[in-house]
């Protein structure tokens, strides 16, 4: 393996470790506000993973929408329900041990399947800017889902406004 290969792998493991550490912090931290900040770290890590997969547009969308909109929305909601920002005695409910056992089993099963399946790999180089092709596809092949999801977003925003209104 050449030098670039080694660097790529090191970068991948660093990013993956940071993403997973932030995800664990999101789930395990008692203070919900700190958990929300760790969630922002996870979103950044996932954006870096998108960059490694050469999906640059999606990485930008991840930063703009997930961090810029969803994470900020979550932090605002945490601050609006402020009495919970103080530490609880325990952030977990009664079923956490059973959940941990079941989910560990699930992860082991998924991991074994991932290792055993002979994935077909295409590692050809993408030499061009793919965003124009993405735009063309969104407005031709996927035009109907695109419009439907726009209406869905409008409807949910109106619904959220009505639900949260006093």
């Amino acid at each position, binding site marked *: 393996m050449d030098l670039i290969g080694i660097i790529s792998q090191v970068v991948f493991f660093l990013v993956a470790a940071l*993403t997973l550490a932030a995800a664990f912090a*999101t789930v395990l931290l008692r203070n919900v506000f700190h958990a929300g900040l760790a969630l922002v770290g*996870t979103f950044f890590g996932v954006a870096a993973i998108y960059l490694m997969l050469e999906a640059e*547009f999606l990485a930008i969308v991840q930063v703009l929408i997930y961090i810029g909109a969803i994470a900020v929305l979550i932090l605002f*909601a945490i601050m*609006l329900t402020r009495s919970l920002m103080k530490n609880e005695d325990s952030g977990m409910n009664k079923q956490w041990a059973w959940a941990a056992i079941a*989910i560990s089993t699930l992860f082991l099963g998924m991991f074994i399947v991932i290792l055993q399946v002979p994935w077909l790999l295409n590692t050809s180089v993408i030499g061009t800017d793919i965003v124009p092709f993405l735009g063309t596809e969104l407005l031709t092949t996927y035009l109907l889902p695109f419009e439907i999801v726009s209406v*869905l977003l409008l409807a949910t925003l109106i619904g*959220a406004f009505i639900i949260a209104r006093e």
Partner: protein
Amino acid sequence: MINDIPLVYYLSLSAALFCVGLFGALARRNAIAVLMGIELMLNAVNINFVAFWRYGSVNPILNQAGIVFALFVITVAAAEAAVGLALVISIYRSRDTVNVEEIDLLKW
């Protein structure tokens, strides 16, 4: 770059992230923390979509179904977060708690 990192790495990372998010959704008490676990799971699924788009399709330039699907997932996640947080704030106003163990009005 793409040659150096096997698809299995991305799939394993995605599986781990999904399991962590599932644990958060099942085991946390705070309703907002449950929503954060769901966001983690959606992110894990998106990593899978993009990884299979990059490694799995014959022509990743002309066939961008994986990226389009990930975009739709992000949009629906935004909608879900907006409605979910509005519900949480509404519940907090009326019952003064966001602990999912105390919100049991529909439980028999």
